[in-house]
C-alpha cells in the first residue's frame, strides 16, 4: 500500500490503522536484529549453542544464533516460514550432515560436550538426541518392528523378552499401546496419521534418548490427534528435554516452558513462554504473536 494510491495525500490525515500497517511492514522488512532480546541462556543447560551460522551453498540460512535449551524443559521455536527454525533444529542432532551442500559453523554442546567435535560420532549423538518429523514416517514394517528398529540397531535388548518389554513400554508411554496391542504385527503404515506420529514418538523413546527434537510434529494432523500429541509432549517433558518447532503459537503457549522467536535466519527474542506471549519486548515478536504478519 502506498501513499500515492490514497485519495487524501496529507500524511497527517492517515488513519491510525494505516500508520500501524506501514510501521509493521517496515519492521518486518527491517532485518537489523543485532542482538537477541530476552534470556537466551539458562543455568546448567542441556544443550547450549553459541554463534551458529548455517549456509546452504553460499546462501546463509542462519546468522549468528546463540541459544540454550534447559534440562527437562520444552523449548518452542516459532517464526514465519523460512526463518531457519527447522534448520537450527536439525543442527542439534547433525541431521544436516546428510545434506551435501549444507555447512554448519558455531559451537554446539550437549551436556558440555562438543557435538561437532572431530571425535564425536553422529550415530552416538543421534541415539542421545532423537527426532520426530513433520510428516509421520513409519518404516514399511510392522508396528512392532518399527518400535524395535532402534533397539535392535544399537543392541539394547539382550533377548526377545526384553525387546518385547521395551516395545510395550514405549508404546504405552506414547499412549498407543491400547489401540494397537492386538495388531503389533500389522504394518505401521496402515495406522491413521495421528497414530503414525505417536508410533514415531514411541520409536524414538524406545532407545531412551536424552533430548527429543520435534519438527512441526502436528502440522499434518487433525485437532484431536494434535491434542493427544500435545498431552504426550507435556508428559514426556518430565523425563526428556524437548525442543519443538511449531507453526502454531497456541501450541507453543500450551506445551512449552520457553519460547524462541526466529525471523529471517536470526533469533529475535527468547523468554519464558508466559512472558513472551504477554509482554513481548521486540516489536517483531509482538507483531508476529499478535498476528499482524506471519
Amino acid at each position, binding site marked *: 500500500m502506498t501513499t500515492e494510491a490514497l485519495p487524501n495525500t496529507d500524511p497527517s490525515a492517515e488513519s491510525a490503522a494505516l500508520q500501524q500497517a506501514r510501521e509493521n511492514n517496515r519492521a518486518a522488512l527491517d532485518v537489523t536484529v543485532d542482538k537477541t532480546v530476552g534470556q537466551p541462556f539458562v543455568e546448567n543447560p542441556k544443550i547450549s549453542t553459541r554463534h551458529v551460522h548455517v549456509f546452504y551453498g553460499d546462501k546463509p540460512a542462519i546468522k549468528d544464533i546463540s541459544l540454550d535449551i534447559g534440562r527437562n524443559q520444552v523449548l518452542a521455536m516459532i517464526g514465519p516460514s523460512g526463518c531457519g527454525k527447522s534448520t537450527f533444529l536439525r543442527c542439534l542432532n547433525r541431521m544436516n550432515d546428510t545434506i551435501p551442500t549444507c555447512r554448519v559453523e558455531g559451537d554446539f554442546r550437549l551436556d558440555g560436550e562438543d557435538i561437532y567435535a572431530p571425535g564425536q560420532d553422529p*550415530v*552416538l549423538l543421534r541415539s542421545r538426541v532423537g527426532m520426530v518429523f513433520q510428516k509421520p514416517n513409519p518404516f514399511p514394517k510392522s508396528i512392532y518392528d518399527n518400535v524395535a528398529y532402534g533397539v535392535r540397531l544399537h543392541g*539394547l535388548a539382550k533377548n526377545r523378552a526384553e525387546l518385547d518389554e521395551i516395545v510395550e513400554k514405549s508404546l504405552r508411554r506414547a499412549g498407543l499401546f491400547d489401540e494397537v496391542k492386538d495388531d503389533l504385527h500389522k504394518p505401521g503404515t496402515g495406522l491413521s496419521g495421528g497414530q503414525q506420529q505417536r508410533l514415531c514418538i514411541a520409536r524414538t523413546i524406545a532407545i531412551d534418548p536424552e533430548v527429543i527434537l520435534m519438527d512441526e510434529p502436528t502440522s499434518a494432523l487433525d485437532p484431536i490427534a494434535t491434542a493427544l500429541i500435545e498431552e504426550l509432549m507435556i508428559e514426556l517433558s518430565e523425563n526428556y528435554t524437548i525442543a519443538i518447532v511449531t507453526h502454531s503459537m497456541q501450541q507453543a503457549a500450551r506445551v512449552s516452558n520457553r519460547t524462541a522467536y526466529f525471523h529471517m535466519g536470526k533469533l529475535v527474542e527468547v523468554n519464558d513462554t508466559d512472558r513472551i506471549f504477554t509482554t513481548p519486548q521486540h516489536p517483531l515478536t509482538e507483531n508476529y504473536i499478535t498476528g499482524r504478519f506471519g
Partner: protein
Amino acid sequence: MKNHQEKIRNSLKKRHARERRFRLYGLLSVSVSILFLLLLLTDIVSKGLPAFTETRIKLDITLDPQQLGLGDHPDRDALFHANYSRLITETLKKMFPDAKTRKQRRDLKQLVSKSAAYDLRDAVLANPSLLGTTQSFWFLAKDDVDQYMKGRIDRTLPESQRRLKDYQLAWIDRLLAENRLEKRFNKTFFTASDSREPEQAGIRGAFVGSVLTLLVTLALSFPIGVLAAIYLEEFAPQNNRWVDLIEVNINNLAAVPSIVFGLLGLAVFIGFFGVPRSAPLAGGLVLTLMTLPTIIITSRAVIKAVPQSIREAALALGASKTQVAFGHVLPLALPGILTGTIIGMAQALGETAPLLLIGMVAFVADVPHGIFDPSTALPVQIFLWADSPERAFVERTSAAIIVLLTFLIAMNGLAVFMRKKYEKKW
C-alpha cells in the same frame, strides 16, 4: 541411561567397520563393471588393430606369353583365361630353388594369396603391352606370412608346434632381407566382401547389407512409430479397451527376446508372405518390429512433454485436432523423436540373433545391390568369422567389431548431442 550409552559406544566400532565394508562393496561393484568394460575394449582393440595393416610381397614377374600359353595376338578372352598362377609359382620356384619336396613346393605357393593371380590378370587386361616385360608386383601375402609379420607366430617354439616350418621362415627372412616384404594399410578389409581366405576377406558386403537393412528399418519404423505415438498421445480415447491392449502389447514387445522376432520373421515374412530369404528386406522387416516399441515409447514421452498450452492456443485459433498434432506438436517434438529413433537404429545395427534365423547367416561373397539380394550384416559377419578356425580371422573379427562399435558410438554420440542441443525445459 548411562548403561545404554555404554552399550552403544561399545558396538560402534563394529558397526562403523561394517559401514566401511558396505561402502567398499559398492565401490568394488562399480569398479568391476567399469574394469570389465575396459578389459573388453582393450582385448578387442589389441586383437583388432593389426588387422588394419596387411602384408604384401614384391615379386618380379616376367610376363612371358609362352609360359602363359598365349599365341602371338591373344584376344581378351584368352588373356582372361590364361594361367597366371603358374607364372607366379614359377617365379617363386626360381627365387627359392631350395624348395625340393612336393610339400615344400606347395608351401612355396602358399607365400602369396590366391588373389595374386587375379591381380596379375587384371594388370595384364588393363595393359596388354606388359606382356613380354618384367614387372615388379606387390602381391597380397598369405595369412600365415601376415600373422608372422605381426608377431603372432612365435619362432622360438619347436617346429612341430608352429604354423610355419623352418624352411618357410628362411624364405620369409630372405624376402625381408631383400626388402620384398612390406606392411601397408589394409584397404582390402574395407573394399572386399567375405572370403574363405582370411587375407582376402573384408567387410564391404556386410556393411552394405547392414546399411540396406537399416534403411528398410528406418523407412518403416520411423513413420509407423511416429504415427502410432501421435495417435496414442493425441487421439486415442481414454479407457478404450483397444488402446489399453495396444499399450500392454507395446510394453511387452519391448522385452520379448530378439530370437522370437526371428521366428516370427521366418514363419510370417519368409514362410507366409514369401519375402526372399537372406535379403535385407526380410531383415529390415524383423528389425522394424523390434525397434517400433523403442521408438513409440520414446516418442510418446517427448510428445507428452509438449505443454498443453501450445495445443490450446492452436485450437483456439480454429485449427483442427490433426492440424494441431502435425503442425504444432510434431515439429516441437521432432528433435526428441529423432533422438529416440537414432537410439533405436543403433540397437537394430547391433542385433544379430533374429538375422541368423532369417538366413542372413549365409556365406555371401558379393556386395548386395538391393534389398532383395542375398546379404549378410555386420554383426552376423562378426559371428561368422568368430566361428572360423583360422587364426587370422580372429583379428578380422576384432577389427569388424571395432568398426561396428565405432558406428554405435557415433550414433549414440549424435543422440546425446541432439538431446543436449534441443533439450527443452517447458
